[in-house]
């Protein structure tokens, strides 16, 4: 793995406007030495795929607070795979415990709930990226 900083694309999909968490996460990752590209609210899968390609990103972080994670997160994984982009998708937000395994089964690399510390957030991204690179 190179010494270049990890590049992470962060986005909110669909209608969900809760952006307090993702903005905090953006600053946490930046403080941890990563390069963060925050796309903003109401992004489509295609927008995220384009950003990953153009920014040569190492990971995608999604924030979900509307109980639509079981629908949206797997579709994001599929959209990246369809574009031949091998980058991990990490989901943060309100994810009930029983949804963690189903999301993992559909290819979501890591899930961060409320209360995850800054260190845990950065470590989860590093580890997800390292696994892909390895």
């Amino acid at each position, binding site marked *: 793995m190179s010494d270049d900083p990890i590049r992470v694309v962060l986005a909110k999909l*669909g*209608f969900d406007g809760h*952006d307090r968490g993702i*903005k905090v996460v953006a600053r946490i990752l930046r403080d941890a030495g990563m390069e963060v590209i*925050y796309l903003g609210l109401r992004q489509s899968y295609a927008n995220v795929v384009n950003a990953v390609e153009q920014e040569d990103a190492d990971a995608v972080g999604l924030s979900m607070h509307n*109980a639509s994670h079981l*629908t949206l997160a797997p579709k994001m994984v599929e959209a990246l795979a369809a574009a031949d982009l091998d980058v991990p998708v990490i989901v943060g937000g309100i994810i009930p415990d029983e949804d963690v395994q189903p999301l993992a089964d559909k290819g979501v690399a890591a899930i961060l709930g409320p209360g995850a*510390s800054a260190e845990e957030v950065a470590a989860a991204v590093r580890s997800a990226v390292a696994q892909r690179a390895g």
Partner: protein
Amino acid sequence: MTEPSNAEAKDQWQAAYDASRVGDGPFETMSGVPVDAVYGDAPFPGQYPYTRGLYAAGYRSKPWTMRMFAGFGTAEDTNARFKEILRNGGGGLSTAFDMPTLMGRDSDHEWSLGEVGHCGVAIDTLADMEDLFADIDLGSVSTSMTINGPAAMIMAMYVAVGEKTGVERAALAGTIQNDILKEYQAQKEYIFPPRPSMRIITDMMKFTSAEMPKWHSISISGYHIREAGSTAAQELAFTLSNGFAYVEAALAAGLDIDDFAPRLSFFFNSHSDFFEEIGKFRAARRIWARWMKERYGATSERSMRMKFHTQTAGVSLTAQQPEINIARVAIQALAGALGGTQSLHTDSYDEAMALPTEDAARIALRTQQIVAHETGVTNVVDPLGGAPYVEWMTDEMERQAEAIFEHLLEIGDGSILEGAYVGIENGYYVGEIADAAYRFEREVNAGRRIIVGVNEFTEGDDGKRNLLRIGPEVEEYQLKRLADVKQRRDDDAVRTVLDRLATEAADPEINLMPTIIDAVKTFATEGEIVASLEGVFGGYVERVVL
């Protein structure tokens, strides 16, 4: 005009108290000690600038309303719930809409998948609104509707349902949130850019002032600003300055302040820092009264009296050891009561993870009933008034808010309304809120702030959760319903009225409400009406601020 002496003010207060319709009491402590309605010095409750409360007798004459917000599934599901509320003696209905409806999109929009009926009821056309209020006499209930971006379409549907059931619009009572400024600042459920949105709101204020005297066309909300991460003083300042902005817009549209100001109402958060919250509520009333009187020239006391609803802080609820949230909600509810709120919603302990279960919602209601009926805090009006710390905190909240008003006046060239536009466009509000949120998270992360169950005292979580789940049936039902309505309606009539709406939207002199009402009557969908206006006004994409 000279200030009345303390004794004169007390006499005036006594006269107002005696004229109030006071409840039965007994106004004594649990141990039988009789207590007065008020203690301390002037100005007394009910006296300008209302720091100590709007009414002389406080909760002795008007207990706060326990208004619990709810909504789920199809219009028929919610209609059944409404009827149950009315059967149990409630006169007020409060409607939560689902995400697609709040965003002005139909249930068959590609992004609606997985969201239909989830966090409220799905409304696509007038047919859904008719189902929602079926067999309910709109002339005898008061309806609160929490919606902003497409508020005009939803209000138009309500008016149309009234007409179809023989209730004139003048007889309709209720409130529509319709506070678009805070959407750009915090909640992010906007559709059009700020200026056209403000034009629609001004049209609605004019329309309701002229034709719907019992309707509250706006509820100015700080709740979402605080949830997004602001400090207490920012919540106070942004909310009140948004209120000033609506006042300036209405004045510019030629409305008389004492005609519309009494029908403005507010909505605040109650968070966990007890005295800061109480100071915030007290400062809010004082600032509003002063600005309305001194800056905007209100002469009616009703224009100067700030009425507000309070909800406990959803963002303070923890997913860890969720049952301890009951204690947080109780403390926040008590702060709302001591701050003199007119109505209160208490959150359910399981809301950090999902919509509340019925059991959790019942506990939340019981929590405020305990505050109201067991603690004795309702016996005395503004019981903390005069306490040095409380008065200092009230002054401090006001001081911080005034500093923010100055900034807005500066960037707005002497206008709060222009300052609000500039602050939205240049990322001032979202930047300030994100900074405050990040500062708080850093403090929690570093252990300088303790959140029980999260970064301290973490043992004892059994991991068991009983969460509410919404099944896929609602979405399937709603999609079929929408397809049926589209099949049955006269498409030519829909196209004609939407074309007319687009033409009128291009002329700022025309009030859009009458044509929006005509449009909903043709069963044009909410999304179609929004799209027709979007063609003229454009959409809105916020500048990304980190």
